[in-house]
């Protein structure tokens, strides 16, 4: 039976128990089939209102949340801060308080500052889902990566997963390291010294050589070079980055024969990942996108459906 999901918000992977992660993944796996139905809509969350509050650009995450909300029959509205009162200088708390006065059941939020959703969770009655906060966490991305891994490999425990690229700025890397280590996978991090995160070195072995990291790997997760967060020259040039840290077909050969290649998107083709690899037979990048909808449906359902037993 269900181990249950005793949380009111989903703010990150770090506070979750392995059994809670298992519950989300099992629920997502069960919901995956709804997306293939002739009528892709179930009445589970009828009458629930969800606000998608995005302070940062996003295509995949936002559309994926929107589709998940629509499939579950929740009413949703998306606020892109570029065209909202945020431009007139409204603070985060004021925006949230005003939205809350309209009584939504959930706020899905992406923000450039780490901890912004936690701040909201302290001040709002609605359930808060973190859709990415600064360089901190992106829990639903890690969950959809785990679901994809579990579908392709049948398990998470004991898998060797290489996470390569801009670790320093990556909330995806942070959430994934927490999730995969909690579930018993072996994670190796690889980045140039300038893009390695000192905090994560405590959680997983690190190497400055991509060749070493992908050796014998069951899965390789490539991270995007976050050009928008690159104020001060972390890498000499993109071409050099590709030569030293880009995933090429040559490098894929060092991994297991049945390796899968993952990327959270959006990809910089020819920088962190070669086009042949991104479109290769071992690439599961588009499966990740489909699983993203299933995982977000599971999160919505677990937080909004069912009576809340424990509050956290």
């Amino acid at each position, binding site marked *: 039976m269900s181990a249950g999901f005793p949380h009111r918000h989903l703010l990150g992977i770090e506070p979750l128990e392995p059994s809670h992660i298992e519950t989300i993944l099992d*629920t997502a*796996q069960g*919901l*995956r089939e709804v997306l293939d139905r002739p009528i892709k809509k179930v009445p*589970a969350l009828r009458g629930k209102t969800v606000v998608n509050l995005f302070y940062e650009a996003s295509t995949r995450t936002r559309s994926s949340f929107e589709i998940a909300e629509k499939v*579950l029959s929740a009413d949703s509205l998306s606020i892109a801060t570029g065209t909202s009162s945020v431009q007139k200088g409204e603070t985060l708390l004021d925006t949230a308080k005003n939205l809350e006065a309209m009584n939504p059941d959930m706020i899905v939020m992406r923000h450039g500052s780490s901890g912004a959703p936690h701040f909201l969770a302290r001040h709002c009655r609605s359930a808060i889902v973190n859709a990415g906060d600064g360089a901190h966490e992106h829990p639903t991305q890690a969950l959809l990566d785990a679901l994809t891994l579990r579908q392709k490999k049948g398990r998470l425990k004991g898998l060797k997963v290489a996470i390569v690229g801009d670790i320093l700025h990556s909330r995806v890397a942070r959430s994934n390291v927490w999730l995969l280590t909690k579930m018993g996978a072996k994670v190796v991090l690889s980045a140039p010294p300038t893009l390695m995160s000192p905090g994560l070195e405590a959680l997983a072995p690190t190497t400055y050589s991509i060749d070493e990291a992908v050796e014998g790997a069951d899965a390789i997760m490539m991270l995007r070079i976050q050009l928008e967060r690159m104020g001060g020259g972390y890498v000499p040039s993109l071409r050099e980055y590709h030569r030293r840290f880009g995933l090429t077909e040559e490098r894929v050969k060092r991994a297991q024969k049945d390796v899968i290649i993952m990327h959270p998107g959006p990809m910089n083709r020819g920088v962190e990942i070669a086009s042949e690899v991104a479109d290769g037979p071992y690439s599961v990048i588009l499966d990740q996108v489909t699983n993203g909808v299933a995982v977000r449906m599971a999160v919505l*359902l677990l937080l909004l459906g*069912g009576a809340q037993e424990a509050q956290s």
Partner: protein
Amino acid sequence: MTTRMPPGFRERQELMDKSRLARTLSRMAHEILEREPEVARTVLVGVRTRGVPLARRLAALMAEASGVGPVVGALDITLYRDDLTTVGPQPVIKGTDIPCSIDGRTVVLVDDVLYTGRTVRAALDELIDFGRPARIELAVLVDRGHRELPIRADFVGRTLTTTRQEMVQVELAEEDGVDQVVLLERAPVPRPRAAPSPPRVAKRRRLPKRRPKANLKAASRNRQRTRRGTR
């Protein structure tokens, strides 16, 4: 004995053993065949969890008797429940699997126990989202009464008179390792004692001796007799 005793309940009576269950299913399979001679155009859809193995068994029995087996599907009605956002905890979602189009076919919904009818209401809503069947029929192993919606079954294994305090539990080898149907009743809440109670272990050991099995059976027989008398 039941393999999964819900908290606060105790066993009252065995309603069906393995062979009786098998005979009942065999009869139901023949009744379905009698009404639906076009087996290949029929879809048996089991309601998760225990409706699914029941649908598979009925399909196998129909195939044995007619040479052709119906298509078997599974329905997870969790997302269509009318109490999804009010009761907890959440059941695990295992997904719906209907392997063919149901347009123009006869669908036989299969479930273990028919009680309030709310599960069947949800199942009907979900089925209709998959297509437009020619007809939907309902087969249940046990009909225990207390309907809250205008729903009735077309094929019934056994009709029972129950009280709302009781619970009919169907156990199947595929899910529970054993084939049986048992009637459970709410166990009386133990009265708080003034004096400090003796060690619990000793108390538990004495319990079965105080209530020998033969007495239990006799009690339930008496109970049924009185009930029959009043109807």
